[in-house]
């Protein structure tokens, strides 16, 4: 138990936690959206993320970039980033839609019980991750160093790099954009209507099927962006990199209040920081356990999470 270590490193651990948490938050959005609308834990979301990482890497590979290439110039970096983001977004979104179409829609048509959806999600997750695993021989794939980490701010022993700022700003910006979309556009209203009561929404003229597909698509988009941020930060990806992160993201979504978009952001950031603090005090091997303990304690006092569920409840 190293409290002095934590105290000493409070700054660096907080920044690292926020950056990690931002990625988790983006990832958690997919879970929370789908749950809010469909009451379904979308286990396959972790694979949606994972294929996004590979999509970006293979696209960069197509342009001749691999992990041993030199960092391109600023123009090149921006260009490659946009291309990578585009590839990841397209592939993740497409995968999310595919999963919805193949695995969930037939079950919805029969009005199957929620457990069936969960198990199908598990099956989809297994199928996708294993297939990618076989094709990549379960090997790690390195990421080209597009962003050379450079210190932007230096306060005491706290160092904030350009990549961390990019990640945090991007996550906050996207969350703001998504919030406005859900609360202030027609499509967003449709999403909230379906979340409140699918059948009434259908009676009121909302195209339920399209809204559901939209929700999956948005979740996939967010996952794609998170995927690119993730590979830039970690430097590698693998066929099972979705799984552990997926558990963390799901935990973050529940922590913040599942179904609540702002809750996903808060939950992600809180989880990231908490895990790093736990690592600081007890050692990295306990970080996930610490996160779960925090979750259980919070759920005992706030059974619907930090911000409560809200997608279905009309929140202006």
């Amino acid at each position, binding site marked *: 138990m190293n409290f002095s270590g934590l105290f000493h490193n409070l700054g660096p651990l907080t920044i690292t936690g926020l950056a990690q948490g931002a990625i988790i938050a983006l990832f958690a959005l997919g879970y929370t959206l789908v749950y809010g609308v469909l009451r379904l834990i979308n286990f396959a979301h972790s694979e949606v993320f994972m294929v996004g990482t590979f999509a970006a890497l293979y696209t960069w590979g197509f342009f001749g970039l691999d992990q041993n290439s030199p960092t391109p110039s600023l123009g090149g970096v921006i260009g490659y980033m946009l291309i990578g983001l585009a590839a990841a977004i397209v592939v993740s979104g497409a995968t999310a839609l595919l999963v919805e179409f193949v695995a969930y829609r037939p079950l919805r048509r029969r009005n199957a019980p*929620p457990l*069936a959806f969960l198990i199908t999600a598990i*099956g989809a997750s297994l*199928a996708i991750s294993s297939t990618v695993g076989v094709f990549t021989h379960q090997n790690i794939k390195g990421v080209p160093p597009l962003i050379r980490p450079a210190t932007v701010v230096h306060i005491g022993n706290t160092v904030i790099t350009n990549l961390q700022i990019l990640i945090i700003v991007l996550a906050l910006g996207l969350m703001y954009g998504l919030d406005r979309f859900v609360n202030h556009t027609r499509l967003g209203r449709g999403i909230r209507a379906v979340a409140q009561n699918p*059948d009434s929404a259908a009676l009121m003229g909302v195209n339920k099927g399209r809204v559901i597909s939209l929700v999956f698509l948005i979740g996939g988009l967010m996952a794609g962006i998170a995927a690119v941020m993730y590979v830039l930060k970690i430097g590698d990806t693998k066929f099972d990199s979705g799984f552990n992160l997926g558990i963390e993201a799901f935990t973050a979504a529940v922590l913040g209040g599942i179904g609540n978009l702002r809750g996903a952001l808060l939950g992600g950031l809180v989880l990231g920081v908490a895990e790093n603090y736990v690592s600081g005090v007890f050692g990295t091997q306990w970080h996930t356990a610490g996160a779960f303990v925090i979750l*259980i304690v919070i759920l005992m006092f706030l059974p619907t999470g930090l911000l409560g569920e809200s997608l279905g409840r009309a929140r202006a």
Partner: protein
Amino acid sequence: MTEPTASEPRATEEATAPATEATTVVPAQTRSGMTAASSLPAVPEAEVKRATVRGWFGRQPWPVRAVFVLIFVVLAYLLPYIGNVPVIGPQIVTQGIDWPSALFDMSYFVLLALGLNVVVGFAGLLDLGYVGFFAVGAYTVALLTSPDSVFNTKLAWLAAVPVAIVVALLSGLILGWPTLRLRGDYLAIVTLGFAEIIRITADSTPNFLRGDRGFGGIPHPPGNKADGSAIFGVRDATPYFWLGLSIIILVILAIRNLDRSRVGRSWLAIREDEEAAEIMGVRTVKFKLWAFAIGAAVGGFGGVMFAGEQGFMNSSTFQLQFSILVLAGVVMGGSGNMAGAILGGALISYIPDRLRGISDPLTHTDLFQWRFALFGVVIIVIMILRPQGIIPSRRRAMELKDRAKEAAPQ
């Protein structure tokens, strides 16, 4: 929120023949307004007769049923020798792994599936961290019997078994208590967290649970053959399979009795609508704890067997994927009824093991590598074609038929 299913509260009695026919007819009549007149009054004869082998089986007098069950049990004990059956024998037996070992693996998976079925299928509590109880049972045995253990008590396996089961049962209560207030999906994540905490503790306490170094020298179940050598040796897994099978039969009998009693009916009520059950006087707290405790005890039993057979165990066994796999098995097989849980548990162990050692004709890689991909596809297909599971509980099947009728057009 929930639809009324059977019109009368009925104990989940598997084999009352007249009830079968009556209940397929009655719900159609009591469902007012929503369904078309075509579902009145009686369901065609053919459909009733075709209402499963179970219907036919249920109509036989009890001595006939007993004989069938006995034959089935004897056949199960003879499974290690199925490789000798001409033609189909070699197709069934696993290649890449010793067949009795594969059978033993199936037996503890089935045990786990039965336990999880109590929690998820009977009581309707979504548990994503079931492997935790398996771990508790196995680690208790290891701590009490292994020479590597910090306790250094070096008990015999048999002496450690009751202790391990009690500890597992207590851990079920410990898990159950903070989760009582939580609703379905929150419960899922908390149970998942519980299992992960156990795994991480196993990984990260080098002196207590010894992480990856694990415990060696765990003794095997006792007993000597006529020539003095141990029945439960290292080389032959068949006695372990028979032990596992016997435990499974005991557990089936125990759970069946519970299910037919007040406890089972309370679970059913909790599963269908917890708040209504509470209002009707069912002590939901008590019975939810019962469910967790029994599920945990059965899971612990599986862990006990596993430790006794392996002789060595470490923390790498108790991954989260294991819990998820068992859950998938239970639901795929048919949650809420034991035959379904047994089938599901057996399948999730058998299919990957069967695929081991076979080279796929396309890319010449061991088909074993594709096992989870194939498995995922199998799960999806089964859930789409038969969301109630391969062997559905009769209640589930009716529930699904009703739900399907209520489905709004997409």
